[in-house]
């Protein structure tokens, strides 16, 4: 087994981001789409912390705090909208949410 280097962490971050993107594209459940966007943000945080370790500074870690805060806000508003849609349509399937479709 190889000792983990910068490339290993970045590749892992890229794999997790691609899985999150696949989840947003493939799933129709609005909750799982939200979770997959969280997975993409987590992959970003891993890349930021790897960059922080490459430079030997803590700036990347501080940026990852900001990413966490924005993820929390996004999660709160996204969940509120999901709850509203569920009350309105009684489903979490995005296939049913087509009132904006002309």
């Amino acid at each position, binding site marked *: *087994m190889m*000792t*983990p*280097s*910068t*490339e290993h*962490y*970045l*590749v*892992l971050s*890229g794999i*997790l981001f*691609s*899985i*999150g993107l*696949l*989840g947003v*594209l*493939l799933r*129709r*459940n609005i*909750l*799982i789409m*939200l*979770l997959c966007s*969280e*997975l993409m943000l*987590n992959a970003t*945080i*891993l890349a930021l*912390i*790897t960059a*922080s*370790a*490459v*430079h*030997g*500074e*803590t*700036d*990347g*870690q*501080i940026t990852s705090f900001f990413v966490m*805060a*924005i*993820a*929390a*806000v*996004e999660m*709160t*508003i996204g*969940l*509120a909208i999901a*709850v*509203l849609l*569920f009350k309105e349509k009684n*489903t*979490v*399937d995005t*296939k049913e949410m087509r009132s904006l479709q002309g």
Partner: protein
Amino acid sequence: METAFFWIFSTIAVLSAINILFATRPTRALLSLLLTMLCLAVLYTLLHAYFVAIVHIIVYAGAVMVLFLFIIMLGGLGATTLPIQKRFSPLHLFLATVTGLTLMVAVIRIFSKANYPPLQDAMGTVERVGKNLFSNYIVPFELITVLILLGIFAAISLTRKPKDAE
């Protein structure tokens, strides 16, 4: 030791992330995401970002994900299951899979060929992170509190019932 930890926990992280794709119930997908986050926290510790690892577990996995879990359980949103199959036109399925896998292969090829400098010990102790945060990053830090306040207002005004509708 560090090598073994990296391979074990990165494997678990990727596997449980893939499990999110195929989970039929939102609760199981959320618990898989929690497992991914815990494994990522181990990797942050391997990168010497101790404070980020702890904050990631307490705030992100502990607070945000549990909020999500409460909403799923109390709102009844998780009662309906949507399997991944039979819900798509084959064209959409094909295009989405090709897009995601192309990104994955491209990222793996680009990153594994690149020559990055080796990892250093960026000791992310509370002292170092706090000094940097409250000296160089104080303005973004204050702005992010305003953003969180706006998020609270937005969530309240979205879910509040209008008074005259009662």
